């Protein structure tokens, strides 16, 4: 089975998020980057499917030059090759514009399965996989927790619904699945893997500027820290003081312990 996994590089969870002076994105100098969390799970699922069924895992990532760090990481974990859709300012675009770029790069590959993360940690659209399916004419399922390929080009997947409910559905290939975190235990890259990654193929596609800046249907105008509406009582002092105040408040103010 040929599987494409789309992985996005996002600012690391513990980096300092400071909005730039124009309010258009973050102060990049203060950011470190990592692979979007659900995408790591999508990659893991793809690698396990390949190891079971044979075939190939291709990772695709749209982003600036620095995104090659995340591509290398995916290759080190075991992906066979990569496609880098190279453009700057990924932050400025909407889910449709990104999906169009990814779809064009994927089309000539004709994969049987495309795995994406269910949501990006930075922009949080939760849409790219579903849009890809529509653009490519593939069937799709979202928030997937199990993937079970079946005979005659079908796949059975377990989807997460709200409130602890689940649902199995059966779909025809080719298919796009958006993967939820926790689907399988993640592997680490081995030293051997890291070494091998250096020799693996990374194809770079540079969409024409016109294409990359295609009209955005939804434009981000201004980024800012949210206004806090609620009055939270913030405790002060050293840990011991905070603990003391908190217990007093829970006993005599909230009367809950």
């Amino acid at each position, binding site marked *: 089975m040929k599987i494409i996994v789309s992985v996005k590089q996002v600012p690391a969870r513990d980096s300092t998020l400071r909005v730039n002076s124009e309010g258009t994105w973050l102060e990049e100098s203060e950011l470190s980057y990592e692979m979007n969390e659900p995408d790591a799970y999508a990659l893991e699922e793809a690698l396990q499917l390949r190891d079971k069924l044979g075939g190939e895992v291709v990772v695709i990532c749209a982003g600036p030059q620095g995104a090659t760090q995340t591509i290398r990481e995916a290759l080190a974990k075991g992906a066979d090759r990569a496609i880098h859709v190279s453009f700057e300012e990924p932050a400025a675009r909407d889910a449709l514009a990104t999906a169009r770029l990814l779809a064009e790069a994927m089309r000539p590959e004709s994969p049987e399965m495309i795995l994406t993360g*269910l949501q990006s940690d930075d922009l949080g659209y939760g849409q790219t996989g579903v849009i890809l399916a529509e653009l490519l004419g593939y069937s799709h399922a979202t*928030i997937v927790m199990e993937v079970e390929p079946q005979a005659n080009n079908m796949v059975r997947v377990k989807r997460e619904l*709200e409130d602890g*409910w689940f649902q199995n*559905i059966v779909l025809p290939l080719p298919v796009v699945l958006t993967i939820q975190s926790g689907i399988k235990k993640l592997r680490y890259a081995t030293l051997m893997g890291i070494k091998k990654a250096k020799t693996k193929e990374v194809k770079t596609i540079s969409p024409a500027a016109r294409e990359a800046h295609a009209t955005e*249907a939804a434009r981000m105008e201004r980024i800012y820290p949210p206004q806090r509406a609620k009055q939270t009582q913030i405790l002060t002092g050293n*840990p*011991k003081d905070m603990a003391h105040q908190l217990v007093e408040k829970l006993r005599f103010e909230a009367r809950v312990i």
Partner: protein
Amino acid sequence: MSVLVVLEQRSGKWNAMSFEALAAGKRIAEAAGELQINAAVLGSSVDALASEAARYSIQKVFTLDHPLLAQYTADAYTAALEQMIRSEKPKIVLFPHTYQVRDYAPKLSTRFGNVLVSDVVDIKNEGGHTVYVRQLFQGKLNVDVRAAGEPQFLSVQAGAFRAAKQGSGQAGIEKFAVRLEETQIRSKPEEPFREAQRSVDLAAADIIVSVGRGIKEKDNLPIVEELARVLGAELAASRPICDNGWLPMERQVGSSGQTVSPKVYFAVGISGAIQHLVGMKGSKTVVAINKDETAPIFETADYGAVGDLFEIVPALVEEIKKTKA
């Protein structure tokens, strides 16, 4: 010109978020003055639901009633709504941001060459035009989004708008004749199910100590277990802790885990992403312990301790032991 709100039901029961979307729709319609507000109900035999929806002081309820809509599939829902939107030409189409909507609304908007503005938390007027407020970085930042094109597709976040109340109104109900063929539907859904009986019922707990990724390693869990023990509390967790297998899935709180409303909820090293908040915001008192003073959890907390949980939690254990002695 109209705003169309797509209400969500499963097996004849509303998803309550539908009426939050309706409230958001009303807000847009009122701000714009001349906009009508209509609702759509999809399913099979939905007349009773439509009559209920008709009492929410709106202009019209459309029913998209078809045997092939009895069970949700992305293909059928998208096809049905596409037909209806092409014929009615609403200016804005609004959804609650549910898991079902995540599954098909991006597909639908793509058919119109447009993009869904997803998970909207507020609607504002900035310099004479409408902007939709979304969250970035799991609630750590906000962004104003300006949408182009028609229709505009929006989904609204759980809890962001106060649900509309039924009024005394009586909207007209109109059947929209959906054309669907079985061959259009590629996926075969099976019956939804829950995992085997849970061994812990967090919903019944008076006190919950909930732990997040701030705990860093599985080996650090005894620190919060001790806090739970001295309080007589149940231990719960955010998703990453269960994903890693450090605590069983049944202790996960949030949109895909359990919904809890204890007297006190201690959020220890939890950032407060919306998918976590929806599971615990009904708690009577929320205590947050987090080293990042800008963490969104502080917006939901009654009491906040900003600092290192590895120092604060043991101090808290000592303090509680003292009062119990």
